[in-house]
């Protein structure tokens, strides 16, 4: 028995690697769907969109690049599915040059799946430089800020933008941000001045830092990390990569916790043995 414990304490770490790979891969291929507890800050975003009348204008800003894709893409997909299902008019854009291709891909994919038409039901405006000053320009005149969309179609006269002059005509906006600057910037230069309601979605790492904005009402909801995306998928009752991802998260965490516990059991078994501290 002691021999076994000794072998387990000094186990080849490649066994651990294999366990982790398995714990992540299996739920991704075949999700087992653990119940997901929905937090009020995610529910707030869902409720607001749910209450919007048909053909309201919804702006989704992709303020991230491929390195944050695992956490923020599922949020984007879930929000788009919800917006399209509610028959909202969706405008998309990005502040991050390197995120443009990714954002366009997400739009095309979800729109094709929900049978929505580019130019009529949604528009992807693409990227333009400026950050905060771009938001101000959009607040003055949307068509000057984005004379054409990502696929080079001129924006004036587009059916989806009918009656939209600037940011004041936006009913709701969500910024999906990989850096806290994304959501803060939209608040400072956009919401504060042009009076639209907004929410934020962020990576898990920066989410805790955004709670003060939520508490002060600067954003009306917050979707944090993969967990937030999974909660949103639960709300729209359409499971996606985040829910599968959360299963993988749970599985991986438990593999680690069990490993740590086992290791301590073996360690204590060995500690009884005199003169053989490991």
């Amino acid at each position, binding site marked *: 028995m002691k021999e076994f414990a000794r072998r387990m304490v000094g*186990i080849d*770490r490649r066994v*651990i*690697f294999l*366990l*982790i*790979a398995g714990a*992540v891969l299996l739920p991704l291929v075949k999700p087992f769907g*653990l*119940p*997901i*507890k929905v937090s009020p800050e995610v529910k707030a975003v869902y409720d607001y969109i749910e209450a919007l009348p048909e053909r309201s204008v919804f702006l989704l800003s992709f303020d991230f690049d*491929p*390195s944050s894709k695992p956490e923020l893409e599922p949020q984007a997909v879930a929000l788009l599915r919800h917006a399209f299902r509610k028959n909202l008019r969706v405008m998309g854009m990005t502040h991050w*040059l*390197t995120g*443009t*291709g990714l954002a366009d891909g997400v739009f095309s994919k979800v729109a094709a799946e929900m049978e929505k038409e580019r130019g009529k039901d949604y528009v992807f405006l*693409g990227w333009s430089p400026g950050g905060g000053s771009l938001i101000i320009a959009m607040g003055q005149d949307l068509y000057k800020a984005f004379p054409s969309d*990502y*696929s*080079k179609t001129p924006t004036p006269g587009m059916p989806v933008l009918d009656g939209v002059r600037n940011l004041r005509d936006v009913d709701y906006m969500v910024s999906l941000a990989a850096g806290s600057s994304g959501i803060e910037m939209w608040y400072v230069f956009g919401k504060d001045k042009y009076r639209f309601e907004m929410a934020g979605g962020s990576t898990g790492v920066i989410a*805790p830092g955004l709670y003060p904005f939520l508490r002060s009402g600067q954003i009306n909801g917050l979707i944090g990390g993969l*967990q937030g995306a*999974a909660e949103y998928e639960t709300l729209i009752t359409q499971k996606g990569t985040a829910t599968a991802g*959360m299963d993988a*998260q*749970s*599985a*991986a*965490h*438990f*593999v*680690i*916790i069990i*490993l*740590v*516990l086992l*290791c*301590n059991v073996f*360690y*204590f078994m060995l500690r009884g043995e005199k003169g053989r501290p490991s």
Partner: protein
Amino acid sequence: MIFLKRQLPLIITFVMGVAFTLQYYIPHPISEEAITNVSKWMQIISGFALFLGLASLFHVHAVKIKRQVPGWGYSLVLYAGMLGTIAVGFWSHGETRVAGAQTSFGWLYDYTMVPLQGTMFSILAFFIASAAYRAFRARSREASVLLASAVIVMMGRVPLGQFLVPWTWDVTQCLLNVLNSAVRRAILIGVSMGAVALSLKIILGIERSYLGGGRDQ
């Protein structure tokens, strides 16, 4: 000559240091402009410094190839990757996207740099597990505390944990918001005292090791 070699660099450090310490307290546009410009200068200087690095890299691998040390073929791979990227980059004028369309440089970035970066980064997931297995042993009272708080937070952060042991969620929030902030804050304050002290010594010429050579002669 001794003056130029020893004193002049110290004088430059002193002048730059004092000027940019005071800059912080001056809101006037002239001062704002000064820091913007000089920050740009720093970027330019470090741009030149890349040549130092390149020279070192070329030297190390050229020696490997010349002496044909085992694995010298990989040095050739490195050269090929580097020169290939430079060629493609200049051909695309350093742009990854032109009018929405991906350039060759953009392709190289999206399909080599991005996955390579992401893969190296994701290896952390494996290593964090093996590190936990080795380190989280209740060897001493300190180690047990470390172990317990890590396990609680790991439980509290995922649905399965929140489902099985609901109180872990609240404890996690408290650990992260209060205890974690307290320790980080103390470390930050300590580190900042050290940082300010070192900066002051550099400006006053007491610490000179960054110039190479003895400290206090």
